[in-house]
Structures are given as C-alpha cells and as structure tokens.
C-alpha cells in the first residue's frame, strides 16, 4: 500500500490517483515561515519604526526568527520524495512556479536576517573575541568560544563610535528592506496555494494576503509567548540561590515584562482583526457567488470540517483569545493562555487550508479524510505523522537555546 493511500480515506466518487499528498509536513511549512515572518516584523517595529516600548523584545524576536528560519526548510526536506535532489531548486529554478521562489526568497531573507543580527551583536562579538584572546589558561570550551567569536567578527574589530553609528544605520536599512522580503517569504507560500486553479478551495487572490496577515499574527504571538517563558526562566534564576549574571530584581523584571507584553499584544490584536476579516470575507464571497464548487465546499466547510474550522480555529483559536486580550487589566497569565491559543488558531488555519483543500475530490462528488499517523512504524509514518510535526515544532527552540548561548538575548550594552 502506498503511504498516501494509508492515511487517506476515500468516500463516494474520487479519481483513482487522488490522495492526500500534501499532508502534515506541508501544514508545518507555511506555519514555520509564518512564524519567521511574524517574528521579523515584530523586531522591525522597533528597529525601523523606533517604537521604544518594544526594545526589550526586538532583539529576542530577531534571533528567534533566525532560529525558526533554520528549521523552516526541514518540513520541505521531509516531504520531498527525493530530498537529496533539493538543490535542484537552486540549480534550475523554474520561476513560473511559485515554489521556485523558495530558493531565492530563502537565500535573500536568510542573508538579511543574518546580517542584521551580525550588526546588532557585532560590538558584543568583538568584545568577547578580544576578551577571550587575552584570557590565560583557556580550556577547551573557551578555545571553541574564541574560535566562534573570532569567525563571527568577519575580520572586523572596529568598534569605535563611528563604526557603531554605521551599524545602527545598517540595522535600520535591513529592518526596512527585510519587511517586504519577510512578507514575500510567507506571501509566496500563500501564492503557492492561491494560484492552483485546480483546487476550488485554494484558488483565490486573497490567499497570499490571508497568509501574510495570519503569519504576522502567529509570529508576534510566538515571540510574545517565548519572551514570557524566557522572562519566567530569568525570574526563577534570580530568586533561586544560584543567581545568573542579571542584576535586576524580580519586581523590576516583572514590570518590564508586563509592559512589553501589553504593547506587543496591542499590535497582535490589530493584525488578528485584519486576518479574521479577510478569512470571513473569503467565506462570505464563496457562499454568495456559489460557483460550481460551492456545493462540495459547503459540505466540507459546514459539515465535515465544522469542528476544525469553526470550533478549533475561529472559536478557540481566534474568538477566545480575542476576548481574553481585550478584557481590561491584562495579566501575564491571561496573556500566556491567549497567546498559546492564537498560535494554535493559526496552526489550525494552515491545517484547514492544506488538508481542507484535499478533503474533497476534483470530481466534486467525493470526499477524502486525513488520518494522520500517530505512532511511527517506519520512516514514512514518522515524518508525515504526529512525531514529525513535534520534531519540527521542537527544533527551533533547541536552535534558539543554542543561539542564546552565543548571542545573549537580554544584553543591554549594544547599539540600539
């Protein structure tokens, strides 16, 4: 039995070759790029527009965006039937295909984020390199650290005021240029779906816009969520006898944390409203115009996928956090719950688009159900199953932690 046959349940009249080919990992990919784009936009709100209240979370978001970016190609690699040929996208890109944009956009975006991080941390990197160079009795770990920081300097040790000014200017430019590129990184994923005229659910010019809007929502939410988690860890360390190098008291940290989260949440709510409006507009339009595909789509949206769409995505993932975030006197705890639900809501949106679009047959007279493999029995059921999804979800945080060992997230003695 073919793997795609294993997790597809066909009902009524479905063409013989139709299966759910784009399964769990294809749901994960736009989810990941959305988080990447959203995190970057949040960071740019400070670095480009100078919104001072977001200063604390700005560099945090940028590093998180990079960690997410490093994992973003993984769902695609896991999905490809011939992953070892993935470089062909860079070798012979067919730009009439939206997927071919992946090569260019990834490369450009990665360059921008990496460069911006470099400029942001350059002073710290140079200082660390010089300090380690002069240190006597370097052990193995120190030697590795010295090597890393020296390589990261890219050969420049100039940290005069003039150089730092240039860095600041570069950050501003990159933050500005990066926003449209980040939007393109996720917008093209929306175009990948929206331009498929063969798929009645995906085909809409609104798709790239909906994707970008919900991407920003998810990215901002994830940054705020991770920021809260990181701050809680910091606070725990401070109150714990073995204190870290951070001097601020618990009270002060809580004050900063609440302020940052409240401001971040305001931007989140704006994008959330925009994102929901677009999706509802699309739904209303389809029902009103009622083209040939409407009968089967109506069955999929209002009956088969009712729980997935209206309960999980709109109610639990959008409405509930909306209410939670708009209620007065927002607390960290309430914000954490709301943010988690928002991220879940965006994940369900990706699921409902990717899987939902394959829930009906091209015949418009049959259905397909997706039975995601839960327990991995072989590599196929692992990579396109629950554990494959969990791997992709977990890895960015692991990379993020590793990056935070090299580039501190809450350092304040840097050009900003």
């Amino acid at each position: 039995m073919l793997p795609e046959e294993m997790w597809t349940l066909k009902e009524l009249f479905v063409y013989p070759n139709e299966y759910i080919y784009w399964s769990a990992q294809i749901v994960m990919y736009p989810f990941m790029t959305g988080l990447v784009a959203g995190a970057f936009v949040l960071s740019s709100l400070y670095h480009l527009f100078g919104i001072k209240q977001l200063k604390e979370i700005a560099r945090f978001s940028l590093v998180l965006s990079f960690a997410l970016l490093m994992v973003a190609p993984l769902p695609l690699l896991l999905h490809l039937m011939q992953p070892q040929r993935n470089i062909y996208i860079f070798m012979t890109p067919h730009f009439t295909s939206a997927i071919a944009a992946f090569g260019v956009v990834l490369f450009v975006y990665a360059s921008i984020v990496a460069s911006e991080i470099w400029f942001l941390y350059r002073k710290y990197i140079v200082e660390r390199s010089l300090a380690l160079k002069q240190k006597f009795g370097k052990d193995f770990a120190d030697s590795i650290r010295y090597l890393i920081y020296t390589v990261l300097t890219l050969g420049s040790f100039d940290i005069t005021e003039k150089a730092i000014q240039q860095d600041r200017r570069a950050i501003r430019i990159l933050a500005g240029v990066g926003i449209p590129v980040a939007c393109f990184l996720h917008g093209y994923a929306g175009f990948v779906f929206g331009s498929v005229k063969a798929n009645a659910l995906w085909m809409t010019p609104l798709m790239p816009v909906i994707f970008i809007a919900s991407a920003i929502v998810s990215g901002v939410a994830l940054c705020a969520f991770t920021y809260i988690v990181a701050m809680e860890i910091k606070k725990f360390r401070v109150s714990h006898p073995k204190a870290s190098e951070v001097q601020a008291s618990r009270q002060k940290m809580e004050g900063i944390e609440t302020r940052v989260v409240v401001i971040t949440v305001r931007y989140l709510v704006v994008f959330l409203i925009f994102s929901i409006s677009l999706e509802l507009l699309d739904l209303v339009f389809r029902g009103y115009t009622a083209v040939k595909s409407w009968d089967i789509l109506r069955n999929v949206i209002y009956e088969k996928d009712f729980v997935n769409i209206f309960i999980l995505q709109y109610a639990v993932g959008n409405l509930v956090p909306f209410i939670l975030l708009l209620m007065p006197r927002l607390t960290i705890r309430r914000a954490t719950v709301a943010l988690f639900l928002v991220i879940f809501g965006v994940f369900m949106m990706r699921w409902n688009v990717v899987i939902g679009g394959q829930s009906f047959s091209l015949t418009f007279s049959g259905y397909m159900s997706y039975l995601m493999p839960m327990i991995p029995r072989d590599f196929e059921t692992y990579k396109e199953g629950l554990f494959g999804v969990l791997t992709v979800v977990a890895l960015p945080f692991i990379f993020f932690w590793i990056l935070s060992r090299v580039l501190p997230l809450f350092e304040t003695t840097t050009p900003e």
Partner: protein
Amino acid sequence: MHVLRPLYVVLLLLGIILIARVFIVPKDFGVYERGYTYGWHRAGNAEDWKAVKVQYKGRDYCVACHTVQGQQISTSPHRIIECENCHGPAADHPLSPKKLNIDRSRDLCLRCHTSLSYPGSMRSEIKGTNPDAHNPGIQCVICHHPHQASKPH
C-alpha cells in the same frame, strides 16, 4: 568599510552556488520549443522516453507463430480482443518470457460478460450472465472455449 562584510559572505555563497551549477546541471538543460513556461527541461529526456522497451507487440506478432489460434479466433466474436489482453504482453517472447500466461480465471471473462443492463451503452449488447447465479466459482473455460466462443467446448 566593515559594513559590507556580510555582503561579501553572501556573494561568496552565491558564487559557490553558481560554480556548483556548472557541475550539477546537465549540459543540455535549457529552454526549448515550448518556451520557458512549458519547455524548460533537460533535452535528453525525450530520447530516454523514446528508448523505453515496448511490451505489447500486437496480434500480427503472435499469429506469425501461433497460426492455429489465430485461425480459431478469426471467426469468433472474440477476434476483436487482442491476444495480449488475455495472455499478457509478448515483450521478447519466446526469448523472454519463455511462456506467456494462460489466465483461466473467471474474473477475466467477467470483465465483459457480467451482464450489465445499461441503457444506451454497448455493454448491454454483449451476451452476458449473472456471475452469482451462473455456476459461481467454476472456471468459465471449462464449458466455453475462449478462442471459439460461439462453439461449445
């Protein structure tokens, strides 16, 4: 100017990709008759497909040796069915495969001879039977000769 250093790294990576391209991309990969949208490919592939081995040879190939069976079936309504439909593709027979399959199963006959009364379809014109009622489980060829269907076996 230290500001340009990241750009140098990016250009270096780009250079590596462009150099790799020279080695990885086949020389005949390019834009052909149907333009960039529909004709962006490795030209040699069309020849690869043309070189695929033919499996089905057609009746003339079979009756060149199997004249008796050819004769038998030529007067039967079954003459419209290619030999290889029931016996499988000739390929390089008699070299490979040495023998072709003689499928005596009921299912083979029931493809056409399960009676389906479909108004407007040629299927209704075929003499058929209800497989569940007419000697279920027994091979059709025990009574019916496939090459001379109108004659009793």
